[in-house]
């Protein structure tokens, strides 16, 4: 259906419809418009991430230390392996999608159905993996103390050089400190669940264990976080005002709280795209089974959702680089 030249078409025909600008159908053109504007949104997110990171480079967490989990491997340090696997899954689902589009060109209904199904499964695995990453990130691993100025103090064992979890070295102090409920006071005041340990308990445990030192957010010359001496650590721990376990939009045990905010917004926005892509794919999948496109005579609808699906993959390639690699 290659249109040879648009210039020879009479003006009346051009404005009367029946002419496809840039040789793309209306639906595909609109999908491209959407993709380009969506790309600008993601660009805005990533640029602001880069900007914030550049401005706060000294308190920015090192991604390798944050994302270290792999399913069924407990306590094993596996930086990035799982994200890499997720990337492969998404690229592969992109491939099955483009194979479905290709089968659509050949009007092969059985193949389109099969490849669409594989694409949906790949997308679902990816969304599930992202949910799991979020769970680990929110739950946290070692815990940390936060100073009044918002600095994060993490703990390291001097002897082994490994991170120490506050849960493990804190010494319990019998104290009455119940979570404030809105039913026990002014009705609009309540608080979230209390951390498992208090600042006093962590401090007590820290003083008792000679091997523990504090690791601050400050980057050294060779890009590592500064570890204080035992004396400096003992002085520093008095500045702590709160216990942080895990990460949310306000506190972040891994470092700068902006890191957590960007993590939730960028991967969340991308995950939402994957989720809606899976939903749209399922709708098209059923349309394929019902023979809608067989009757229509072409599978252009598969091509259009394919464009969207590849775009989601494309965005992930960038998110992967800027969040996990750089």
């Amino acid at each position, binding site marked *: 259906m290659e249109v040879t030249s648009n210039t020879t078409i009479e003006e009346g025909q051009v404005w009367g419809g029946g002419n496809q600008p840039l040789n793309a159908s209306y639906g595909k053109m609109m999908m491209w418009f959407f993709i380009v504007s969506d790309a600008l949104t993601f660009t805005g997110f990533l640029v602001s991430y880069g900007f914030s990171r550049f401005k706060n480079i000294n308190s920015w967490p090192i991604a390798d230390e944050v994302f270290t989990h792999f399913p069924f491997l407990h306590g094993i340090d596996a930086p990035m392996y799982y994200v890499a696997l997720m990337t492969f899954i998404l690229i592969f689902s992109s491939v099955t999608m483009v194979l479905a589009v290709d089968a659509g060109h050949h009007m092969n209904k059985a193949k389109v159905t099969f490849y669409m199904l594989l694409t949906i499964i790949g997308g679902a695995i990816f969304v599930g993996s992202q949910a799991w990453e979020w769970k680990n990130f929110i739950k946290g691993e070692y815990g940390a103390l936060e100073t009044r100025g918002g600095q994060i103090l993490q703990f390291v064992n001097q002897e082994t050089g490994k991170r120490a979890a506050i849960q493990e070295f804190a010494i319990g102090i019998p104290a009455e400190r119940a979570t404030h409920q809105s039913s026990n006071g002014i009705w609009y005041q309540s608080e979230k669940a209390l951390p498992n340990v208090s600042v006093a308990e962590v401090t007590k445990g820290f003083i008792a264990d000679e091997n523990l030192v504090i690791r601050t957010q400050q980057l050294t010359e060779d890009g590592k976080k500064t570890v204080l001496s035992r004396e400096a650590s003992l002085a520093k721990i008095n500045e702590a005002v709160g216990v942080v376990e895990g990460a949310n939009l306000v506190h972040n045990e891994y470092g700068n709280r902006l890191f957590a905010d960007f993590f939730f917004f960028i991967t969340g926005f991308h995950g939402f795209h994957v989720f809606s892509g899976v939903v749209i794919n399922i709708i098209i999948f059923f349309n394929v089974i019902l023979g809608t496109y067989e009757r229509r005579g072409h599978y252009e609808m598969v091509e259009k959702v394919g464009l969207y699906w590849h775009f989601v993959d494309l965005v992930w390639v*960038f998110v992967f680089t800027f969040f996990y690699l750089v």
Partner: protein
Amino acid sequence: MAAEGHKLAIFRGLVKFKSNQQKIWGVLLFLSIVTTIEVALGIIKPEILMGSFLRMKLLNWIFIILTIVKAYYIAWDFMHIRDERSGLKKFNCITPCNFNTLPGIHPAFGGRLYF
């Protein structure tokens, strides 16, 4: 728009495929290799690439360039931009690119590349 309309050569004609399906698998192989290189570099972090080049670590330059290479093949072969007309090509690619690079060089952001 039929399958015959696909351009089947990649790497500027260096590699030619017999069918569109073959080209898809070929591109997958290429993307997988690039991703594997990225992940390996990210885990090993070779000392030799930690030097600074144009205010950014050499390693980060490699990551960003490899990412753009990957993005090119996803857009060109999976999204079939290779087969589209040049007007659509330009519109789709140049619009986001301008906005991508602008903040990096804009004086308001310090006039330098981030990271």
